[in-house]
């Protein structure tokens, strides 16, 4: 790298040096290009190829099976569960992240100057925490001999296997919302802060205060940020892995399983690499379409209510 810097002439002809600029630009892009060829485009082509084979991850032999993997997806209970669960995760995660993010941001924005920054930062802390740390703790909190379960057994004769019950899904939702709420609040807070004081002053002169001011001014001014937060949260609900992997294994009755978990298990536990690749492709199509639809809806909302 250093040698190349020295090879560059100190003064460069301004306009005629376009090809030189081109070369330098490509040099700047080289690391990214190398990376994306090796770790994006090559694996992508490979994955497409795998999806029409029955390769088992180990053996040198495999058969071309055409679209059999894809047709098989439609009758696979685990795949069905992963498909529908992504929407089951998406709705509460988006709604709750929105509610908590907005709530925390609105409260924080009303705090006196110095507290504002500190409180916003502190709300951000859960975002930094590894899903593994929270998962092992939650697993322990809900284990048979935990404080909670001993208490319930002794006082109410209740014996609940939390992580294999209907509550498991909501425990996972709670963990994710706890983790992400303060992060999204930071975006909303930053948007609220960027509304200029003039706008509010004009509104107050026009007799617009309190809740009305919020509905008529704050909310429309921050709809672009809300759109981003909703899309981010929707995307997030397709990325869930650590929590169900460590806590529920996807159970009970596949109610907490996710695409990530199913693809991981299919590829590396049951060694159906070809079938796993087909699952991943269908997953990608689902993500793409869902995000498109949500973006479309949010843009309509933006046009109607935004400024």
């Amino acid at each position: 790298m250093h040698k190349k810097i020295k090879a560059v002439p100190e003064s460069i002809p301004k306009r005629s040096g376009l090809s030189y600029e081109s070369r330098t630009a490509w040099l700047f892009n080289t690391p990214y290009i190398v990376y994306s060829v090796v770790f994006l485009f090559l694996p992508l082509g490979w994955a497409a190829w795998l999806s029409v084979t029955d390769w088992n991850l180990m053996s040198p032999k495999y058969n071309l099976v055409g679209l059999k993997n894809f047709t098989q997806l439609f009758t696979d209970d685990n795949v069905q569960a992963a498909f529908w669960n992504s929407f089951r995760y998406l709705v509460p995660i988006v709604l709750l992240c929105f509610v908590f993010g907005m709530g925390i941001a609105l409260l924080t924005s009303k705090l006196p100057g110095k507290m504002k920054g500190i409180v916003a930062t502190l709300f951000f802390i859960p975002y930094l925490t590894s899903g593994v740390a929270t998962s092992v703790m939650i697993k322990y909190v809900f284990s048979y001999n935990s404080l909670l379960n001993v208490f319930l057994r002794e006082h109410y004769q209740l014996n609940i296997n939390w992580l294999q019950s209907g509550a498991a899904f909501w425990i996972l939702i709670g963990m994710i919302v706890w983790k992400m709420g303060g992060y999204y609040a930071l975006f909303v807070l930053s948007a609220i802060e960027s509304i200029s004081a003039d706008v509010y002053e004009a509104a107050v002169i026009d007799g617009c205060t309190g809740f009305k001011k919020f509905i008529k001014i704050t909310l429309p001014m921050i709809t672009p940020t809300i759109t981003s937060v909703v899309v981010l949260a929707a995307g997030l609900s397709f990325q869930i892995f650590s929590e169900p992997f460590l806590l529920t294994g996807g159970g009970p009755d596949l109610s907490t399983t996710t695409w990530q978990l199913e693809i991981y298990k299919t590829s590396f536990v049951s060694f159906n690499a070809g079938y796993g690749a087909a699952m991943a492709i269908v997953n990608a199509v689902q993500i793409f379409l869902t995000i498109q639809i949500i973006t479309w809806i949010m843009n309509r909302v933006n046009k109607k209510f935004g400024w």
Partner: protein
Amino acid sequence: MNHKKIKFHTVIIIIVTLLILLITLFPYYYLIIQSFLPWDMVDKSFIPTKVTLDSYTYLLNRGGSSNPFMWIRALLNSFIVAFPTAVVSIAVGLMTGYAATNMQYKGKSAIHSSLLFQMFFPVIILLVPRYMIVKPLANHYSGMILPLIISVWGIFMYINYFKTVPKSVFEAAKIDGASDFKILRKIALPSTKSISIIVFLSVFMTRWNELMWDMLIAPNINVQTLNVMISTQFNQNSNIPGPMYAASILLTMPIIILFLCFSKYFKEGINFMLK
């Protein structure tokens, strides 16, 4: 602060906010307290009546002669994997971001489309092929680091930042005869201080908390990251939860302290995240 100036409803808001904050952060309080309690009191007390380092010395002595200091090594492994990733993400983000915004060249739009494509692309599709490509490097740091070494999100942070910098800043340096390399090092890098700090911390954090890839490619206990080790060692119901809390402290606190130290840069940087 002048207390007479604070209105009644501001006080209510402060109390409500702090209450929510306390509930949000309670798990951390609990984690810290439990990691320092003697083992017979773990999970039985919310107040640190007695403080010991039992849980931490247990971690220090775990592994015996075959895997001495396995927890310390796991902590080091996490650093060894996360640190270069964060540094390279800054370097590549800076170069690619600068080229995308301040240079004219053939193929620019192709690179930009590739970046956009990658930004929204679900990485899970690449899992098996990436595993096959990197398999010869299994249980080596390089195998853990390389496939995740570039952050497309980081590149976009730089692109969004450079878009807000007037082109004339770099043009002027160019007219003075500075090469693009020199501009990048002497003008662009120092001006992106807060962006670079955010990219560094976020990439470091994401890499530190990675589970799936590290678990797949580096199952060997000598190269396991702390995150993976906690998931394998404490994923069964143990009757000594103290060390679990201590290990979780080791995992979460370095990141939290890093972020708190640099939190003042976030206010500036957050504006570039959503564009």
